[in-house]
């Protein structure tokens, strides 16, 4: 009976000592747990420092890499993730994060050429396929037909992605040279072509008005005024041609920017593409 009591006492003391050692706030495990707490709070710099004290643990190494990415230090994050590719239970997650980082940095070679999806679970490989397609959409050079492009996306997203695909593959841009020629033939026509209606009508009226005034003054033998208004008409005419060329360029930049913004909004709205550990 006495022996059992002594044994129970020893067990109790060992248990308590274990709790005590784990609760040492500066032990590796405690720092790791504290790091996770900071990570969840979004305090990535401090989380990263805490994880650094426990790098023998793969999860700690993995979360430190994610913390680095969240701070924009993607190259360092990738170094840590590469260290987890072999002989780690987190190998798949680490490889997946490498793809996500490649997407964030626009590393198209990694996304398109360095494909090793064969040993990925479907959840990851499907997301990587989608990331790769979004990367194509953002860059604009799409080598797929529509059906092939839409294939990895779920039904609820297909209509939206399809619209963006068409806008990228067959962009409705304006030709600056055509706009300039149109304005050379009929002042303002190039601006109408680039849907800048107000400026188009103004250019037509200004060139017309100054040309009329020039002719009228020459007819009335007001040489100086005739020359003055001819100069003004020429100035507005040349400005209208140059303006139409620029207007087409501006139209195209706005068109492409709007599409890029729509793509980025879509990427943000479909949560599985947003940066961060899940």
């Amino acid at each position, binding site marked *: 009976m006495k022996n059992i009591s002594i044994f129970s006492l020893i067990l*109790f003391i060992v248990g308590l000592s274990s709790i005590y050692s784990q609760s040492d706030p500066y032990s590796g495990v405690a720092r790791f747990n504290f790091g996770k*707490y900071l990570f969840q709070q979004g305090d990535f710099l401090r989380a990263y420092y805490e994880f650094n004290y426990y790098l023998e643990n793969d999860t700690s190494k993995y979360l430190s890499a994610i913390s680095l990415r969240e701070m924009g230090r993607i190259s360092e994050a990738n170094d840590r993730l590469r260290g987890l590719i072999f002989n780690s239970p987190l190998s798949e997650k680490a490889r997946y994060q490498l793809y996500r980082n490649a997407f964030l940095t626009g590393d198209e070679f990694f996304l398109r050429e360095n494909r090793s999806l064969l040993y990925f679970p479907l959840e990851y490989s499907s997301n990587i396929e989608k990331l790769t397609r979004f990367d194509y959409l953002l860059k604009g050079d799409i080598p797929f037909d529509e059906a092939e492009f839409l294939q990895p996306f779920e039904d609820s997203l297909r209509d939206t992605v399809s619209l963006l695909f068409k806008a990228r593959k067959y962009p409705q841009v304006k030709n600056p040279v055509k706009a300039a020629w149109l304005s050379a033939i009929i002042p303002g026509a190039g601006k109408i072509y680039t849907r800048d209606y107000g400026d188009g009508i103004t250019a037509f009226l200004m060139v017309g008005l100054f040309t009329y005034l020039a002719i009228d003054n020459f007819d009335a033998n007001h040489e100086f005024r005739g020359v003055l208004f001819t100069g003004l008409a020429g100035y507005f005419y040349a400005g209208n041609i140059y303006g139409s060329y620029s207007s087409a360029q501006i139209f195209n930049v706005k068109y492409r920017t709007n599409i890029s913004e729509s793509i980025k909004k879509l990427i943000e709205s479909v949560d599985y593409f947003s940066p961060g550990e899940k």
Partner: protein
Amino acid sequence: MKILTLLLILFSSLAAQTGEIFYKADSLYNNENFFDAVTEYKRLLFFDANEKYSYEANFKIGLSYKAGGYFDNAIEFLAKALKNAKTEEKRYPAFVEIIRCNILRKTTDNALTLLKNAIENGEYLSRKNEIYYWMGWAEMFADRWNEASAAFSRIEVEHPLKKFASQVHNKKYDVTFAKLISYILPGSGQFYSGEYLSGVMSLGWTVLWGYVTVDAFASERVFDGFMVGNLLWFRFYRGNYENAEKFALEKNNKIYIDALLYLQNNFEGIKP
């Protein structure tokens, strides 16, 4: 008995651990090592299962962030400290620090709303003067010197900041007045804000092109009248009143910045 002693030793050492973190964090804070101080206070919050240090840790994290200029984070943690404060003695410092952070990050309307709500709800009644004091500071940072003067005068009619705020208010230019007199007499708004050369130029150009315009109409050169009137006279007339407004705004901005700099460098009382 032995087990009880062992348990007592164990739990007292666990409590001592949080105490040690608190001591370390305070030491870092006192040495102005705010980054590490925040880490240690956060560690304290994480290990402090009984929430013994909730108020102190959150409050000091808030102050550390404030010292580093991270006012959003500071307000977040000060609000937590305020929530964890059990007595008015602890609530009030957290409340005031939230106000000071709002003043420093120029969300002065937030500060004023919080202060007015405190007065309306009868909170911190024994510290009413301090509340008016921070109201005055919020109004000064909001560039409303007359209102600031009124807030300080509630503490004391001859309060030094009341006098200062009144002086700044009197120095400032009335932007609407500057614009209005320039509508009536071109250049006068610029004279009002001390930009004499610009005032003379404005007056000269508007008079010249006004004369040419009138002369063209008087000589029945209607087209010339319209062209000169529109392209020259009106252009200078519009420039004149726009400039009057711009100069008054620029001067007021300089007065505002100078006043705040003066307070920063020369005022010896409590500052945000």
